[in-house]
Structure formats: C-alpha cells, structure tokens
C-alpha cells in the first residue's frame, strides 16, 4: 500500500485523522517519520500534517513560555529570549537537523535521541495534546511515563516557567563525538533559589532509563540547602538512585551508573 499524505489546516482535523488510523503518523520535522519510511517501516501508511500556525508559534515574552510543537531547534537558537535553552537546542544533531527537528518530535525520540526533552523535564513542562475527542494538558512526567500510548495524539505545544536566573537552569549532554554526538547521558537541572536555599529542585536525566527520568533522590539532597560543596557531593552520590539505564552502542549501563554522579557534580559545581 502506498503512503498517503494528508495535510490539514487545523489541528482538530489532523488530530482526528491521527486518532482514527493506527497506521497514521504525524510528520513534524521528518527526522523520525521520514527516516522510518526510508528504512522500510511499512506500519506507517498515512502521514498527517497540520499547517496551523499555532503549531510553530513561540511565546517567550512573559514568565510562562510556550513553544508550538512544530518549533525547530534552529528557531530556539535564534530567539534571544530563550538563551537558557540554547545549550539543549544546540546539542541536537547538526545544523541541518536543528533546522528540521522540532520540540514536539523530540518528545517521542527514543534513546539515544531526545535530549531536548530532558531539559523540558527539568523545567516541569506541560504538554498540550489534542486527541480525537478533545484537547488536554498533561505534565511532562506523565507524558513520558505513558509515551508508548501517545502516538495517536497530536502534541500541540509545550509550556513551562522561565527559570528565575541564568544560573538556575543548567544542562549538559555527555557525548563521545564532538560537536555532534549521541548522548551517553544527558543532564538538566532546574535549581530555583529562595534567598540562598534551593526550593523545588528538579534534576532530569537522559539515557538513564527508557525515557528521560527525574533524579528524585538527588533532588531531595538539594532541597532547602545552599549549593555548596557538601550539598553537591550528596547530590552526586544520590544521582544514580532510582535509575535503570540500559546497555546500548554508546555505553553500557554500568558506565552510565558510574559517571552520572561525576557529571552531576561537575554540572552543579560549574566545572568543565
């Protein structure tokens, strides 16, 4: 059966087309769906597109930021107001992939891809989705836990609060190949500070489980503490707790567990 391409002007119709056809996939930047087609994935026979401008809108003027699911990494890099997201955006692919790949698609990218989503998880993002029956907002934690069941929905946008200071959000992708390489692990930390104490720390890890996960034990060691050497050591020591990394072509589970604390310590202490 040849592939059918369906282009809709509004997201409702696109979402309806997606949810009514198991062989339909939404085409964002093409890095996942076109690759699958090129490689002979015959489970896809319908490609759904939406030309709704809302899908590519960036709202970065206020304290709450919304990125349309079709926003590319190159556009984030071009947005001065989104400086804190430049590191995660730049860590995706090479320039061509950044001109194509989207924030929404990244939510679905399996290990060793999907680094931007690690940043989103640390920022406690909310994912707006449109199903066959209607729209809803779900937390990124929940979205990732149920990701396998989300292929029939259309992601519209992702939103999150702007970090209080440039220091409050940190991101690092550990790759073997420079400057463009797949992640061995990815780390993102959001460390809101009240006075000199961290309140509401979120640490997200990529490649430490089948989907990006929170390092909750490490978060607890930071909570209510100043970011000093002993706090950082405690967080580093707790980084591996609760993780379930796997072996893959880039590194083994053992190696990931060994280094996650080292890199979290370096990230928190600002070391190269």
């Amino acid at each position, binding site marked *: 059966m040849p592939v059918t391409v369906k282009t809709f002007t509004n997201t409702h119709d696109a979402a309806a087309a997606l949810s009514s056809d198991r062989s339909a996939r939404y085409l964002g930047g093409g890095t996942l769906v076109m690759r699958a087609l090129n490689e*002979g994935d015959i489970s896809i026979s319908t490609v759904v597109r939406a030309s709704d401008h809302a899908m590519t809108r960036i709202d970065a003027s206020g304290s709450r930021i919304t990125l349309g699911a079709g926003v590319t990494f190159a556009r984030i890099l071009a947005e001065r107001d989104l400086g804190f997201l430049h590191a995660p955006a730049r860590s995706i692919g090479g320039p061509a992939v950044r001109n194509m790949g989207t924030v929404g698609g990244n939510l679905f990218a399996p290990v060793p891809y999907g680094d931007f989503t690690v940043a989103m998880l640390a920022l406690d993002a909310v994912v707006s989705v449109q199903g066959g029956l209607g729209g809803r907002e779900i937390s990124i934690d929940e979205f990732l836990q149920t990701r396998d069941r989300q292929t029939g929905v259309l992601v519209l946008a992702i939103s999150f609060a702007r970090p209080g200071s440039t220091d409050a959000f940190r991101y690092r992708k550990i790759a073997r190949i420079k400057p463009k390489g797949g992640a061995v692990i990815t780390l993102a930390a959001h460390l809101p500070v009240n006075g000199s104490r961290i309140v509401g720390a979120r640490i997200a890890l990529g490649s430490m489980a089948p989907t990006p996960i929170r390092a909750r034990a490490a978060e607890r060691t930071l909570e209510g503490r100043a970011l000093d050497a002993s706090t950082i050591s405690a967080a580093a020591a707790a980084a591996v707790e609760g993780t379930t990394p796997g072996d893959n072509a880039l590194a083994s589970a053992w190696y990931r567990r060994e280094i996650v604390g080292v890199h979290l310590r370096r990230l928190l202490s600002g070391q190269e």
Partner: protein
Amino acid sequence: MLELRKDLFADERDDNLKEIGKGTQRQDMLGHVTGTSPYFDDHKLQGMLHLKVVRSAHSHARLRRIDTSEAERSQGVRRVIRASDVPRNLNTLLSLINFGKDDEPSLAVDKVRYKGEPIVAIVADSPREAYEAIAKVKIDYEVLPAVFDVEDALKPGAPVVNEVYPKNTFTYHETYDRQQLRFGDADRALATADHVLEQRYQMSPIEHAPTETNGSIAAPDTNGRYIVYTSTQALFFSVDTCAKILDVPSNTFHFIGGTVGGGFGGKVDTLTEPLCILGAMLTGRPVRYVFGREEEMQYGPPRGAERIYIKDGVMRDGRVVARKVRAYFDSGAYTRLSSYAAVKCAAHLPGPYTIPNVHGDVYCVFTNRTPATAMRGFGVTAMDFAIECQMDKLAHLVGMDPMEFRILNAYRDGDMKAHRREAKNTALIECVQVAAEKAKWPLREDFKRMSSRKDGGGARAAVTPTPRETHAPIAAATQQRTTYDRAPAATREPPPPPPSSPPPPPRPSAPSHGATRFSSVFGTRRR
C-alpha cells in the same frame, strides 16, 4: 602539516624529475567539487526496478520452510528470487585465485549461519513495494545453537558453523587448521630469557563505513549483454565472481565503475552484483540493489575481529630473543578473505624487528556472525596493535626508553626475517629517529647515530636452527624465490626429531583445491 625529509636516503634517489614529486591537483577534483563525479548510483535507467533481500532473523538456524506465495502476489512485485533461481549458488571469493573451497551461497539454502544472511530477494517497482512484500515472506526457522567466540568455536562439541569446514577453521595446505611460522627455537629461547611476558590482545570488528553504501545497478544491454554500474573495489574480481555464480561467460557483462564513494576494503566482496544482475536477467528490466545504512553497518562485512596472544622473551639489555604468537581471525560464517589475511599476518611476524626465534600459529575461525572481509591494513593492523603494545610493555619491563628499545631491536638491511627472506630497503630506525625529533623526544647520541643501512646482516642473517614438530609433515614446499629474494644464508642442520615420534602423516603431492597457491592467471578460473 607535512614535511618532506629529502636529506635522508638522498643518495638512493634521483630527484631530477619533472612531474613526480609535485603536488599536482587531483584529476578528479573538479568533478568532486561540482558533484559531477559519476558514482554507480548516479545512473538512472528507464523503468528501473528495486531489489531488496529478506534477511535471516537468527544467527544460526535450519530453514524448515520458506513460503513466498503471498509475497509473489503483493502489489508491484515483479519477481521473487529464491535460492534455487541462482545458477551456481555456492562460491568463495578467492576461488578465482584457486584458494579455498566454495562455502557461501548467494541466498541461503537449508540453513542460515549468521543473523542477516540473505534468504530471498524481492524485485519490485518501488522500494516501498519491495518492503511490503518482504513482510509477507514466511520463513519457518529451527533455531540452532550458535557460537560467537573464536576460542569457543574451536572447543570439542562446538556448533558447526559451516559444514564445508566442520572443525570451524579454514583448512590450510589441505591439512592444517592454521598457518604456521617457525623460525628458530622459541621455547628454548624463552626458557633462558631474563624476562618472559605473555599477554592477550583483542581487536574489535570494524565497519568500513564508506559514505556511499555498497550497491549496483544492472540492466539488459544491447546484443544480449548486461551493463552493470557498480561500487566494486575490484572490477574483474566482481566480473568473474558474477560469471561464476550466474554461470555465463564473463564477456556477458560490461562493468562500469571506477569512481567509488570510499571502500576501505568493504567493497571487494561483490555482495550486490550477482543478485542485481540475476534480477535483470529474470525480469528483463534494469534493477537497482543498494544497501541501506543499517544493512551496511550490520550485514555488510566488517574487518574481522582478531584475538592475539603474544609471549615474548627479553634480555636485561633490551634484546627481544623470542616471540611466540597465537592469533585467531574471526571470519564470521564464511571465508570471504580472512583465510588470506591469516597468511599475510603470519608473514608479518614478528613485526619490523630482528628476533632470532619466532613461533606463530594463525587461525582463521568460523563463528555465527556476519562474514568478515578485507579492510585497510588487512591482516596487519591488529597484529601491529598487539606487537606495539607488547613492545611498550617490554621496554617498561627492562627499564628502557621505548624509542631506543625499538631502535635496538629494529630490523636492518641484511637481517634474516622470520619468513626466511633477507630484509632490504629498511627504514624503521630512521622513522623512529625522525619521529623523536619531531616530537622533541630525547634520544641518546648512539641511538641517533644508528642506521638501517649499518650493522645488519652477518650473524643476524642466519636462520637459527628450527626444531621440527613431531606432529607436522616434514616435506618442505617447493620454494619459489622471487627475483627480489636471495636464498637464506647457510643454516646449521636442525636437530632430528625425537626417535619416539610417530611417523608424520603423508603430505599431498601437489597443492590443489584448498592449498595456498595463488594463481597468477586471473580470469581463467578453475571450475
């Protein structure tokens, strides 16, 4: 940055040349920068069909039943090619130079021996339709125990990977499970060495990863011939391999290639051409068969892994007096070119050093993985890794500078090499000296003054008495020394074998099928 050291060996060169030695622009550069260099895939022919193969899901399995009926009815399918459609469905690459037995089918017959082995080929109007048909081929496998480790494969009771070689090793000289090298008495020298160091080294498989994947386009041409655009690294190798497998005269084919997007050894195996031409023969249409990237990485042949054990004897003054090497080439499920690499590896021992006692056993072992093939430095890269790591450890052991340690042991003009030919035209010492200079690595004056052209030969030209092994046949092969080689210096008579030894097995009178004989006449292949 590159510097030409014209001051060295100037007396051996005529530098009064006009074109040689100039950094002339590449003939193909303009084509490359304008994107007009013609690679095989840049030929689009009217009505071209696309070929894809069904690959084995298992590393080792018996094929109980292959049902292609639904695939044949699938939309856009022009032809399903099964093993029985391949005229001569058993080949080994080096049969063209009379080396080894036919051991590999183009499409698996009753058994698959590695994951990804081609079983059925689909020729369809579009790649998509070929993929859809692939999903409709039903294969009933009986999964068999598989072996992946070269040393496990040699243990008694190991699964037999390839029935052509039931001991899981290539057969050398119709008798041997390995290629030997024997020079001097390594065991005796090890017994009297000041230090003995035994180590294990493991070379990984390596994927060639050319930016252009393997592929070809074949089309019926005028007057009953077939034109074939190909990425092959060896045009007549491919022509003759296809002529053999498809059982037609070689001049049935007009092969065009010559501009290839990287090879590194990975495009010698003629993997796509036979099925591609067969597809064109069976459909009467142009057919294109190009590897996808995952196919190239996982089922295209890699440089094979090698496991190497080295046991060295070294004296306190830094002289290496014995080197004993056991090496296993992981050939994967079929021979391809690993048998040849093992001989090349044996010839390379003990590296560029004059060591009076050398003992080598090099095995070509079959395992249930993608067949290995040639790659840049074939047969040598892994051994160099092992030898040079070992040399560093030996230098450390005797407390010598590693550069000076290598200069001390380096071969020089006139020395006898372990494969019993005189070393000539050597330049290892000078390379070490110049590298030291470039890296500002201090060498002592006497080491700076040493030369490849001085102090070689003499006692270093002799073959140390080499004991015969009781199990081995004693008749020596006829030696064909080339015009470049002189006979080795006179040697003392080796000691006779111990009287209690059993009589040696008879040796075949002349090398024939499976013997290490490289026919120089390519194209007049033996059937």
